C-alpha cells in the first residue's frame, strides 16, 4: 500500500494505482473522457489534468502512477483553467445538437460542462462538418460530428472483443471514427460501444428516439439471458421497459454484456404479454383471472392420484420459487418432476467472453432444488410415462425467454399426450394454442428472488414495475394448485 494525498485528503492505495483511480477512491471529482476503467489508457482527451507537488508541468492523472508520499491536486486555478480549456477544445467542433441527440441527459459533455465548464464560448469560426447518421449495421448508428475521438470504442473492439472493426481515419480535426468501407459493426458485444461512448456519437438503433433518458428509472438486476448472470441495469417508466445496460461486476461481467442480453426486456412489455388466464372448454376458450385458473387446476389435481400428476420445470425461475414449488410438489405427493433442458447439444458452449450456451439464468438453482428433494426422474422416463398414459395431468412451468427454446412446439406436442396440460407462461406462444390451461406468470423484473449462475454465484434480482399485476409467480401458482390459499401480502 502507498500513501498519497489527493486534494488534501490522505488515502492509501494499492501499488500500481493510477492517480485517476486514487481520485475516484478518494471520492474527488476529476474530469475525463478517454479513460475507462475496463480499457487501456489512451491519454488523449487531456482533461484529467493534475498538479503533482514538485513537478513543473501539469500531468494527466490516467497515465501517472501513484508513488509513495505523492501530493496531487486538481483544485488549483491552474488546473481548473486547463480543464476549462480542455472542455472548450472538445466543444468547439461539437455540433451541440443535444435536442436531437439520444445521449442528452447522460452525456459526458453535458455533465462535465456543468461541473467544470460553464464559460462563454469564444469560437466564432465555422465548425468542421463531418458525416452524420452513418449506418453501422443493424445495431448501431454513428454520428462522426458528435464524436470527441476519445477512442474508447476503438479500444473496446481491439481489447475486449478483439475484433478491431473500428478505427480512427484521417488526421487532425478531420479525424473520424469508422469502420472500413462502413462495414457493419456486428459482433456479439457491439452495443457496449454505445454505453462507453461518452457522447452521442454511437447510438443504439434499438433505443434510438424511443425515450428521453430523463424519463427513465432504472434498477439493477441480473440478466436472465444465459447462465453467466451478468449484472445489468434495466431502464423503465410507466410506458414500459426500454433498455438494458450492463452494470460493473468485477467477478462476472466486468463492465460489459452481450447484445443478446440487451433484448431481455422485450418480452416483459404489455403488448407481448399474456394478460389473462385461458381455459379451454368445449364452448371455446374461456378467459379468467390467473388465480382462479390456478384454483381450477387445484381441483383437477385432486381428481388424479399423485402418480398421475407430473411437473416439468425450466431453468428460468428464481431459487425461491423453486424451493417453494418443490415444497408444494411434495405436498401433492408426486415424484414426477422433470427438468426441460433446452438445446442440450450447445449447453456447455462458451464464447470466451460472456456468452454461454446454457440459455437459462438458473439451471444451477433448479438442479439444486431438485437434488434437495431427491427428484431424479429422467426425461426418458417422462416420455415413456406420457406414451404409456401413466401421466394424466402435466403442469409445465414454461420458459420466460421462449426464443431460446426452439423445440417448444415439439415438446408441447409431447406433453399433450397427457389428458390435461397446464402451461404456466409469461408470454403467449402459438404452440400453447391447444393447452387446457394457460396461466400468466410474472417476468423476472416483476418479482424478487435470486438466480444461481453457472459458477454457483447466487445473485439477487429486483422487483421493478409490475406490468401484468394479476400474473402469478411460480410459487404462488404452485401454492394455489396444491390447494392452498394465498396469504395476503405474500408477494415474492
Amino acid at each position, binding site marked *: 500500500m502507498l500513501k498519497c494525498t489527493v486534494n488534501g485528503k490522505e488515502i492509501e492505495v494499492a501499488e500500481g494505482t493510477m492517480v485517476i483511480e486514487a481520485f475516484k477512491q478518494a471520492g474527488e471529482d476529476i474530469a475525463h473522457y478517454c479513460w475507462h476503467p475496463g480499457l487501456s489508457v489512451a491519454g488523449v482527451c487531456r482533461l484529467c489534468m493534475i498538479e503533482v507537488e514538485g513537478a513543473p508541468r501539469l500531468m494527466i492523472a490516467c497515465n501517472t502512477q501513484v508513488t509513495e508520499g505523492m501530493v496531487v491536486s486538481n483544485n488549483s486555478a491552474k488546473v481548473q483553467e486547463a480543464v476549462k480549456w480542455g472542455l472548450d477544445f472538445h466543444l468547439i467542433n461539437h*455540433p*451541440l*445538437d*443535444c*435536442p*436531437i441527440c439520444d445521449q*442528452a441527459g447522460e452525456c459526458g459533455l453535458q455533465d462535465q460542462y456543468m461541473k467544470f465548464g460553464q464559460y462563454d464560448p469564444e469560437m466564432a*469560426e*465555422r*465548425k468542421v*462538418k463531418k458525416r*452524420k*447518421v452513418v449506418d453501422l449495421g443493424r445495431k448501431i448508428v454513428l454520428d462522426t460530428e458528435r464524436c470527441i475521438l476519445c477512442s474508447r470504442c476503438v479500444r473496446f473492439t481491439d481489447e475486449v472483443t478483439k475484433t478491431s472493426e473500428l478505427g480512427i481515419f484521417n488526421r487532425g480535426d478531420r479525424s473520424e471514427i469508422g469502420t472500413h468501407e462502413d462495414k457493419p459493426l456486428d459482433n456479439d458485444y457491439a452495443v457496449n460501444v454505445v454505453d462507453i461512448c461518452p457522447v452521442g456519437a454511437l447510438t443504439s438503433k434499438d433505443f*434510438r*428516439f*424511443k425515450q*428521453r433518458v*430523463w*424519463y427513465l428509472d432504472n434498477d439493477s438486476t441480473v440478466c436472465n439471458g444465459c447462465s453467466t448472470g451478468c449484472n445489468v441495469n434495466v431502464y423503465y417508466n410507466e410506458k414500459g421497459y426500454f433498455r438494458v445496460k450492463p452494470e460493473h461486476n468485477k467477478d462476472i461481467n466486468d463492465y460489459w454484456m452481450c447484445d443478446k442480453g440487451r433484448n431481455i426486456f422485450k418480452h416483459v412489455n404489455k403488448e407481448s404479454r399474456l394478460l389473462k388466464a385461458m381455459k379451454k372448454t368445449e364452448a371455446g376458450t374461456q378467459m379468467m383471472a390467473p388465480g382462479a385458473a390456478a384454483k381450477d387446476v387445484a381441483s383437477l389435481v385432486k381428481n388424479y392420484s399423485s402418480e398421475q400428476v407430473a411437473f416439468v420445470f425450466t431453468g428460468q425461475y428464481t431459487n425461491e420459487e423453486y424451493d417453494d414449488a418443490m415444497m408444494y410438489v411434495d405436498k401433492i405427493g408426486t415424484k414426477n418432476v422433470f427438468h426441460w433442458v433446452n438445446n442440450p447439444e450447445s449447453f456447455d458452449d462458451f464464447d470466451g467472453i460472456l456468452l454461454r450456451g446454457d440459455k437459462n439464468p438458473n439451471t444451477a438453482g433448479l438442479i439444486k432444488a431438485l437434488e434437495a428433494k431427491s427428484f431424479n426422474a429422467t426425461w426418458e422416463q417422462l416420455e415413456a410415462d406420457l406414451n404409456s398414459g401413466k401421466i394424466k395431468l402435466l403442469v409445465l412451468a414454461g420458459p420466460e425467454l421462449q426464443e431460446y427454446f426452439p423445440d417448444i412446439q415439439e415438446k408441447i406436442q409431447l406433453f399433450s399426450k397427457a389428458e390435461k396440460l397446464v402451461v404456466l407462461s409469461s408470454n403467449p406462444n402459438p404452440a400453447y394454442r391447444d393447452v387446457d390451461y394457460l396461466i400468466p406468470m410474472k417476468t423476472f423484473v416483476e418479482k424478487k428472488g435470486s438466480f444461481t449462475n453457472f459458477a454457483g454465484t447466487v445473485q439477487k434480482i429486483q422487483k421493478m414495475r409490475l406490468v401484468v399485476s394479476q400474473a402469478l409467480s411460480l410459487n404462488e401458482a404452485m401454492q394455489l394448485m396444491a390447494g392452498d390459499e394465498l396469504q395476503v401480502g405474500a408477494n415474492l
Partner: protein
Amino acid sequence: MSIVKRPDIKSSWYVTSIVKGMALTFRNMIYNLFHKDEMPTVNYPEEKYEYGPRFKGSHILTVKKDGSIRCTACMLCATNCPADCISITAAEHDNPEVEKFPISYEIDTLRCVYCGFCEEACPVDAVRMGPEWQQPGLNGSSFVHDIQHLTRRPNLKGGYTSILDEEERHNSGI
C-alpha cells in the same frame, strides 16, 4: 367575536337601492345606445375581440421554409410542461440533416394551463402560443390537438414559419 348588526326592517325592503340601481342601469343603457363606439364591451359572438400578437393563446407548431415541421422532437417542452399535457412520439427522418422529427405531437388543451413554458423551453422556435383563444369543441377528444391541427389549422393560413432557418444554420457551420 364580532357582532353583526342587523339592518332595521325598513332598509331590508331595498326600495331606494333598487331605484338607484335601475337609474344607473338605464342611464348607461340610454347613453350607450347613442354612444356605441365608446362601449367597453363587445357583442360576442357577433363581434370578436382581437388580442395583440403576443397574447399567449392556442399553441402553434411552426414550419420550416419548405413547409415541413420545425419540431425536432427533443421533448423539452413535454419535460418542462407543468400540466403534463404534451405527448410526443419521435421517429427517424429519412434526411440525415433532420435526423429526428415527431410523428405525433399532441397537446391536451383541457389540461393545459397556458403558462407558456413549452414555448420557453423550445430550443428551435418550434412551438409558439398564438393569439387565438377560441376553441370550441363538442367532446373531450376535440380538445386534444394533434400535429395536423397544431401546424396547419385553417386559421394559421398555411402555417407559421420558424425564425430559425435550418439551411442558414448549416451554412454558418453551427
